[in-house]
């Protein structure tokens, strides 16, 4: 399993092997799906801490006097609402309102910006970003092959990282970052952010420094319940916290409004790609939307399963699990809007069986961010 042909490896590949990771192909990368086990890793992040290699994700830098105007046209959220050293979660949409990708924009000094983008979308995103640059004075640089990204997540993340850095982490609040941090003496960009619903940090650094910093984090967390965590736990954690995954809750054929993330779409900020379609969709009203649901009959809903009502297909599961934290069979599903009210009874086709479920709030797990 350690030699999957043609796949890219992060600088932490050897570290994963030493830790006994089980590796899988994820978007062309050979990545750890789990080490000890998804449930144990999931619980570690909820109760103490977990460290994830997310170096497969892409980084893009934007510089030049036209950058702000360029980004305002490119993305759905309002870039002018953030200050230096702040981050913004946003969508990049097609003209029809479908999502190219969900990304995080970082505002650095002097009108320069960075974005972190999904690994599975790097080539598509970069091409799209360059296509949209036409009239703007902006320079776009793909840094994905130069930079690594390590996520440290969980209630003990602050204490663990605090031992290694030369700054007071209290000075970095939620969705803020600092580029002037040394972690075990190595220069890092540290943000207070993540994809688990817990307090935590994402550490962006050079590929050369990544293995050293990773090993220091593992050592510093040894007596604080820290576990290395794979993509398996990353997905169960983000799902419980109602954080969307591109390819599941978001895609070229799902708009941010249908996905239920309209708060990251600022229709009144001025024109942007996809605005007309999204304004129209809002005015006409949604015909379908993503809801949370819980199984009434026993079965685990999975991505892609049909949702039915009276034997007719009315939607599909975007993500479903036996929730490790809640110990319940729950899911997110795109359903026709007439079946989307809380308490609505819906059915899920699980293999040959049609099993009852009901619509519940999407906030399965209350996030514990440190604001």
């Amino acid at each position, binding site marked *: 399993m350690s030699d999957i042909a043609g796949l890219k490896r992060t600088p932490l590949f050897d570290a994963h092997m030493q830790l006994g990771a089980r590796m899988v192909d994820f978007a062309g990368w050979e990545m750890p799906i789990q080490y000890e086990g*998804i449930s144990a890793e999931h619980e570690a992040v909820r109760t103490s801490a977990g460290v994830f290699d997310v170096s497969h994700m892409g980084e893009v830098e934007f510089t030049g006097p036209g950058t702000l105007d360029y980004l305002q046209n490119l993305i759905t959220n309002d870039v002018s609402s953030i200050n230096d050293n702040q981050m913004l979660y946003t969508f990049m949409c097609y003209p029809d309102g479908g999502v190219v990708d969900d990304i995080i924009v970082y505002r650095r000094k002097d009108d320069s910006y960075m974005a972190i983008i999904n690994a599975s979308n790097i080539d598509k995103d970069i091409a799209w970003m360059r296509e949209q640059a036409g009239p703007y004075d902006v320079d776009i640089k793909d840094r994905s092959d130069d930079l690594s990204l390590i996520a440290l997540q969980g209630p003990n993340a602050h204490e663990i990282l605090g031992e290694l850095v030369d700054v007071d982490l209290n000075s970095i609040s939620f969705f803020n970052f600092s580029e002037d941090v040394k972690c075990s003496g190595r220069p890092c960009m540290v943000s207070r952010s993540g994809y688990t619903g817990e307090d935590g940090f994402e550490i962006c650094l050079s590929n050369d420094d990544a293995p050293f910093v990773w090993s220091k984090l593992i050592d510093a967390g040894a007596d604080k319940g820290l576990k290395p965590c794979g993509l*398996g736990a990353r997905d*169960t954690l983000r799902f419980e916290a109602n954080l969307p995954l591109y390819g599941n809750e978001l895609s070229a054929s799902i708009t941010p409004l249908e996905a239920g993330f309209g708060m990251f779409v600022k229709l009144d900020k001025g024109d942007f790609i996809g605005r007309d379609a999204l304004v129209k969709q809002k005015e006409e009203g949604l015909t379908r939307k993503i809801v949370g649901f819980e199984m009434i009959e026993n079965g*685990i809903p*999975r991505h892609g399963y049909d949702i039915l009502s009276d034997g007719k297909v009315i939607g599909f599961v975007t993500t479903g699990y036996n929730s490790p934290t809640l110990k319940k069979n729950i899911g997110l599903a795109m359903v026709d809007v007439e079946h989307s009210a809380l308490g609505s009874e819906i059915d899920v086709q699980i293999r040959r069986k049609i099993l009852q479920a009901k619509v519940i709030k999407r906030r399965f797990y209350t996030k514990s961010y440190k604001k």
Partner: protein
Amino acid sequence: MEIKKGLYYTEENEWVRVEGNKAYIGITDYAQDALGDIVYIELPDVGDTLKAGDAFSVVESVKAASDVFLPVSGTVIEINEELEDSPELINEDPYGSWIIAVDLLDVTELDELMDAEAYEEFSSQEN
């Protein structure tokens, strides 16, 4: 990875324990380890008659659902209902946690299966 003597094995990592005309069926230590934490199992009904190669059960880990295939044809005479409440028993004791027992239709089908030695060799090459 434990491989128990005296059982029959398949390339899909199921085991068969034969007692007279009755065959108990489960999944191997390798299979449970590859699946990870098992959180759900779907069992057939007693009385179902199934052919060798039929998917008779589904075991689900946190991550995915996997079919379990019947190594030998037979009629289901017992199902291990304990697993419905505690599917993790398969992780803890894969050879003790039989999933179903069937009344064998054709004992010569057992000749098609591997013994422990052959499965050990298969595992070292394939798994």
